[in-house]
């Protein structure tokens, strides 16, 4: 028999039993659709994360923090620097205190080869009031020399570190009901920070709080906790595009202010317990500094150098392998869930094919009587299984794609209300499309093995007598 005849016969035979073929194929369609959706979601998440990381060059960043043991690891000032040390930072060793991440550190690390810039990571919570609306957010302090990192949708970035100006994200304005971002430019905005009020921070007040609670005997609220709020007025100079998927590191805020106003503001960062025991004047240096390199390939040598100086480092690129492992586990989990549907569909194929053989028992006898070999009979039923798999694969792919698009649409319509830009949560690479169809055919062929062997074993003498 010719291949074209096998295919034609398969379609013709399946068409004769339309309902059963439809139901069986539908089972495969559901299975493949589920599998495709699951895998495409996994791949979509991976693609979004890695694309976003690459786009924002997050793999080029090193986050530096102070180390409690840094003094022990700190290079001996009397020790002769190596040639590499000289190349990277000839002045550094004798200048910077490894316990403090301050402007001196920033200046010196910026001088290292392959470092584009460095800036302190200062974040603190604040209540934002604008045009009668209030929103809570974390404020990111961003020196003027790196404020152009942001993609602006309106206005411009600030050029001075001293002015009380800020850049706000489009999503924050969106949440505040402002659609025309140009409207916000040059408008006044208020930031309220939380700070410690040392005037009431005494033993008598604390004792009173624990004895009587935060309300007096009349039930009215009393201000006995040692906290106060401070309000500051800023001018909006720019509206930034929110940095995509879950916010980018280190630019992950809705409001960015320059260094100067930040230093003048009374605030609790709420990132360390020491905030409660130190006045702003006592806190020296920054809790962390971000160092941006020209390429991810320089992360390792620069990181090693900074570690040698006694600081702790964190680079996202180090987490890449871990992320890949996590993605593989996620893929495997999603694949396993999808496979349940495929296994159920396979049972449907086996059932359909066995039923078909029982119904066509006499026909198999006729096939053999007119010269069909066992191999021919096997191939006929094998092709029928394959056709079910092919149709299931193609329509399953279409179903998976359609369902993914609908889910994508729903999620994006919800997140767009929060000002989050459109994200495609599903990815359909060519290998997934082709693989889904091939996998469907393979699974169907595997499901067809038993029925096919059964068909080939039919005794023509018995089959021809069968009524």
């Amino acid at each position: 028999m010719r291949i074209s005849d096998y295919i034609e016969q398969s379609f013709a035979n399946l068409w004769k039993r339309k309902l059963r073929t439809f139901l069986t194929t539908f089972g495969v369609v559901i299975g493949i659709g589920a599998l495709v959706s699951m895998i495409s979601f996994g791949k979509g998440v991976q693609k979004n994360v890695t694309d976003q990381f690459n786009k924002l060059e997050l793999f080029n960043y090193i986050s530096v923090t102070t180390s409690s043991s840094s003094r022990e690891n700190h290079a001996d000032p009397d020790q002769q620097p190596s040639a590499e040390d000289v190349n990277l930072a000839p002045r550094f060793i004798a200048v910077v205190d490894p316990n403090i991440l301050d402007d001196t550190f920033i200046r010196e690390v910026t001088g290292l080869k392959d470092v584009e810039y460095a800036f302190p990571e200062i974040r603190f919570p604040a209540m934002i009031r604008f045009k009668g609306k209030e929103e809570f957010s974390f404020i990111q302090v961003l020196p003027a020399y790196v404020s152009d990192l942001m993609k602006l949708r309106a206005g411009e970035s600030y050029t001075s570190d001293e002015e009380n100006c800020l850049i706000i994200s489009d999503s924050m304005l969106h949440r505040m009901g402002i659609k025309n971002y140009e409207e916000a430019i040059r408008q006044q905005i208020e930031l309220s920070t939380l700070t410690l009020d040392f005037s009431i921070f005494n033993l008598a007040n604390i004792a009173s709080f624990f004895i009587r609670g935060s309300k007096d005997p009349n039930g009215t609220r009393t201000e006995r906790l040692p906290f106060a709020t401070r309000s500051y007025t800023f001018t909006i100079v720019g509206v930034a595009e929110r940095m995509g998927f879950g916010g980018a590191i280190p630019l992950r805020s809705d409001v960015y202010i320059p260094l100067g106003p930040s230093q003048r503001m009374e605030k609790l960062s709420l990132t360390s317990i020491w905030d409660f025991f130190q006045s702003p004047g006592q806190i020296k240096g920054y809790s962390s500094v971000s160092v941006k390199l020209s390429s991810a390939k320089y992360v390792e040598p620069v990181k090693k150098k900074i570690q040698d100086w006694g600081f702790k480092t964190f680079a996202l690129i180090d987490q890449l392998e871990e992320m890949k492992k996590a993605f593989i586990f996620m893929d495997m989990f999603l694949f396993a869930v999808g496979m349940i549907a495929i296994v159920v569909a396979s049972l449907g194929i086996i059932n359909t094919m066995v039923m078909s053989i029982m119904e066509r028992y006499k026909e198999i006898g006729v096939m053999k009587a007119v010269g069909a070999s066992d191999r021919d009979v096997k191939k006929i039923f094998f092709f029928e299984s394959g056709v079910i798999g092919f149709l299931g694969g193609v329509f399953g792919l279409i179903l998976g794609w359609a369902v993914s698009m609908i889910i994508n649409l729903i999620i994006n319509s919800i997140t767009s209300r929060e000002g989050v830009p459109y994200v495609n949560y599903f990815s359909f690479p060519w290998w997934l499309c082709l693989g889904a169809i091939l996998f469907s055919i393979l699974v169907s062929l595997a499901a067809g093995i038993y029925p096919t062997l059964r068909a080939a074993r039919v005794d023509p003498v018995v089959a021809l007598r069968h009524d």
Partner: protein
Amino acid sequence: MNCGLPVNNMNSPNFIETEDLTKVYSTGRIEVVALQGVNLSVGCGEFLGVTGPSGSGKSTLMNLLGGLDTPSNGRIKVEGKFISDLSKEELALYRRFQVGLVFQSFNLISSYTALENVAFPLLFAGVAKKERKIRAEQVLAKVGLGNRKDHLPAELSGGEQQRVAIARALINQPKILLADEPTGNLDSKTSREIVQALSDLNKNQGLTVVMISHEESLLAEFADNVIHFCDGRVTGEVKHK
């Protein structure tokens, strides 16, 4: 369509030969002997009639000659080749090209038209679709059903269905036609027409025909020789021509 032998060798007694042909069916501990040491020979171009009571082994003989079944003992030689020694694949080729089988219950595929039923064996012979159609139309025309080619078996009379079955058996131009009770489901007039058609094929095209029938009168009229079967043995042979 002939035996592939010189005309003066027609009716050579050695075209189909069986030697001590035995078939035993086993169902658990019970053994049923369907054929017991049958020795017979059919000449090339001969019309052999086979008759006997039900259960005498006629159909078993037909299945063995047609390569649908294999003997428990003994050998079958067709055209000098022992088909009892053939593998399953070789037997399929034998059924495809050397023998045509006609059955009492026609055994047509109910969802296929007359034309599709006739063309069906050509599928396994690897014949192209277009040629399959042409050849099936020609053979259907030969059996007088050119105008009924697009009808389903259910839309045809018993005689017409049997003629479609004969056309299907002839489509691969076999040298032997084995007919197992081809008139069993037909009225006497139609039965006669069918046997006449087989006889014509035998006479005009040199086709070797082995036909099983209960109707001894028909066999006496059309067959060259008639053998009688009883309890799996040949109990008699009558030469009519």
